[in-house]
Structures are given as C-alpha cells and as structure tokens.
C-alpha cells in the first residue's frame, strides 16, 4: 500500500510520455519522400551503415565500468553502517580500496583509459 505511489508515478510518466508520442502522430503532417528518408550525412550518400559494429574503445570502457561499479556496490552497505564499524571497518575498507585502486592503476598504466 505504501509503495503504490511508485506505480502511480510510473503511470503518470507513461501517460505524459505516451501522449507526446501519440498526439503528433494524429495531427502532424506526413509527406515522406525517398530523399527525406535517407540517413543524414551532410548531403552525401552514406557508403555503409555501421549498425552493430562498435569501436573497441567503447567496449573496454563498458567493461571497466562494470568492474568498478560492482566494486562500488560493496561500499554502499559499508558506508551506511560506517559509524558502527569504527576503526576496524576503516582498516578493512582501506585494504579493499587499496586493491581496487591497484587494479585501476594497472588499467591506467596499460593505456586502457587513453583516447588517441
């Protein structure tokens, strides 16, 4: 019962966003020509559409993100209980963050974060 407001917020947002999609499709003009339907490329005909093929840099960044974001997940509960954990918790987290930053330094030194 208490969390019914989440559903209400979702419904409200869905109605607003849905209306923005539906209303133009009812009242906006449609005069599609083959030229208009071409992909935009500053007036040239596109040679090839690279759908689905990514520069490898983006994939490596995504992998680093998953690695470090999961490490961060472990810090959330620790941060919440920090006052109860005291010096023991502090030392534990120093070890954890130390290992995390070692890995981060390794990525950095290997040039994983360079964009040439």
């Amino acid at each position, binding site marked *: *019962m208490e*969390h*019914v*407001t*989440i559903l*209400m*917020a*979702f419904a*409200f*947002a*869905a109605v*607003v*966003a849905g209306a*923005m*999609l539906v*209303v*133009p*499709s009812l*009242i*906006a*003009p*449609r005069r*599609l020509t083959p030229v*208009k*339907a*071409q*992909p*935009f*490329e500053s007036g040239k005909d*596109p040679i090839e*559409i*690279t*759908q*689905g093929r*990514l520069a490898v*840099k*983006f994939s490596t*960044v*995504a992998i*680093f*993100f998953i690695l*470090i*974001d999961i490490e*961060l997940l472990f*810090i*959330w509960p620790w*941060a*919440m209980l*920090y*006052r109860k954990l005291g*010096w023991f918790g*502090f030392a534990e*987290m*120093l070890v954890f*963050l130390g290992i995390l*930053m070692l890995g*981060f330094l390794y990525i*950095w030194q290997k040039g994983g*974060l360079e*964009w040439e």
Partner: protein
Amino acid sequence: MTAIADLGIAFGRVAFVMLFILNMGGLLTWVERKQSAIMQDRIGANRASIFGFRLLGLFHPLADAIKMLTKEDFMPARADRFLFQLAPFVSVFFGLVAFAAIPFGDTLRLAGREIPLQAVTLDVGVLYVFAMLSLSIYGVMMAGWASGSNFAILGGQRAAALMISAEIAIGASIMGVIMWYGSLSLQTIVRGQGDLLLGWIPAWGILVQPLGFLLFVTAGIAATRRIPFDTPESESEIIGYFVEYSGMKFGMFAMADFLETVVIAGLTTTLFLGGWQVPWLYAEGFRFPWGAELALPHLLVVLLQVGAFTVKVSLMIFVMMLVRWTLPRFRYDQAMRLGWLGLFPLSVLNIVLTGAVLLLVGGPA
C-alpha cells in the same frame, strides 16, 4: 472510506511532484535562452505574444510545444520502427520518475493524518534515483542504434560511454554523504542536515562534504550530457544521437535533457544543500542560536520548507546554466579523462578522508 482518502492523498503527492518537474522542465527552455541572452548582452526570446502581451518571452515554451506537436514526424527508411519510437519514450519516462523519491518537505499534519511530503517514500531512495537515472542511458543508446545513421550511432556510443563514466564518479562521490548521515533514505539524510555544528552552523552536506559536492556537481553535469560535456551531441561535428528525429520526438529528447537537469539539481539540493531545511527552523518555529525564538503555525512551517526546496533547486539549476554558458565544450578524450582520471580517484580519496575525519572528530552521532 479511509482507503480511498489514502489513495487520493497518495495521488496528490505524485501529481504535485510530477507537475513540479514538468513545469520546471518547461520553464528551463525559457530560462536557458533568457539567461544566455542576459549573459551575452542580448535581448533574447521575447517575440511570442498573446494579444500583444509578451511577458518577458514566457510564452515561448508554449509556442515551442505547439510548433513541435504540429511538425512533420517522419521515420528514416533504415530505422528500426519499434526502437525508434521507444527511445524518446524511455528518455522522458525515466527523467520523470527519477524525481519522485526526492523529498520536498517534512511531514504535513492535516486533519489527524501524517502526510509525508515525498511522492515515493523509500528507505533506499538514493538507490531508486540512481537506478532511474542510469536507465535513461537506454533511451539514448536505442536512439543512436535505431536511427540507422552513422552520425547517430556514433553519438549514441559516445553518450553511453560518457554517462557510465560519469555514473562511477556520481556513485563514489556521494559515499561520503551516506557515511556522514548513515542512511540511504533521502528523507533521513535531509533530516540529518537539520543538526547544528558547533551549536549554530547547520550541518548541510556542502559544509561537511565540500569535495564531495564539487565532484558530484561536475559528474552530475556530465551525466546530463550538457555543455561542457555535450560531446554526444556536439552540433558542430556529429549532431548527435537524435540527428534523425524530428518534431515532438526530437522535443522529447530536448525535454529529457532538461528533466535530467532538474533531477540532478534536486539531488544536489537534497544531498548537499539541506533539502527542504531552512536554517534554525524547526517544527514549532524558528529557534535562533542567539536565543531568540519565533513560534510559527504548522502550515506556515511546511510552506516555508517547500518554498526553501524550490528556491534551492532553482538556484542549483541557475548555477548549472551559468556553467553551460561559460565553458566551451571539452574534447571527447578530455571529458573521459576527467571522469576516469580526475573525478573517480578524487572520489575514492574523499571516501578515505571522510572515514578518517569521522573517526577522529566523531561528528554528530
């Protein structure tokens, strides 16, 4: 009967928050133009008029909406029909719901009821807001991929990589706030900011976490993909993931940008600027540190709190717009480098510093 009344109140809370963020987002289209005009010594948007009344150009958001709704709404030949339509929907949807967990006031007591002034009362409000903010990445990626255009897919990839980099910094930079106030509930964090340091300074997040504040705001601006971090759009190079969108669908992406700005401003207010707290204002009225007291009726206190929240959010948006019109765009490698080699290590340092200070000084219990 009470169940219906409860549902009505719940709906009222949700409607208030949703209309708040929708109106803020709509107004921002005007603020952005007018503020840039003032900063650049121009007159700015002032043409739209109703019966000759121009009202400082405040009718422009209305004129924009009418224009976008009636523009041709076409789909390029190579587009993925379903995802192409879904992408703007996802962007706007998650921009809207993210704001719902942010408290805009304390508890309102009315006719024997206790109404929390927060649309979604969650114990893990921080996680909810971050989850919703992260999901809005999908709208951008889908738009880039589904458009079937080289520029669009490049913009989508850039946006995704930039947003996940910003997200790491966002997550790490607020850890200090959570350590200090010891809660993931946004309402509890705001209440904690009502404590006093040294007997007279309000313990707002910006005072106990100055480094965290700077890191969070920087990463927050990066997450909204606005100048100086607008490399996914960079209209002078690749135009961006929405290059193939027209009419209201393009308007929805523009709007999602503004909604995210409001969400980041609201989150900054809640975590660092005391949320709805007014200095030295308690449930019974003002209690000044020099001994004076001023009793206020309950409704007035609540109104002051909601007003304070609105003013703080507007101020934060104003600052973000100042940054937007002051700095030039970063190069893409500079933006990524700032996120990974600047913001992230500093955030980790902030966690360690906060931990040491908390143990040495103790802080408020």
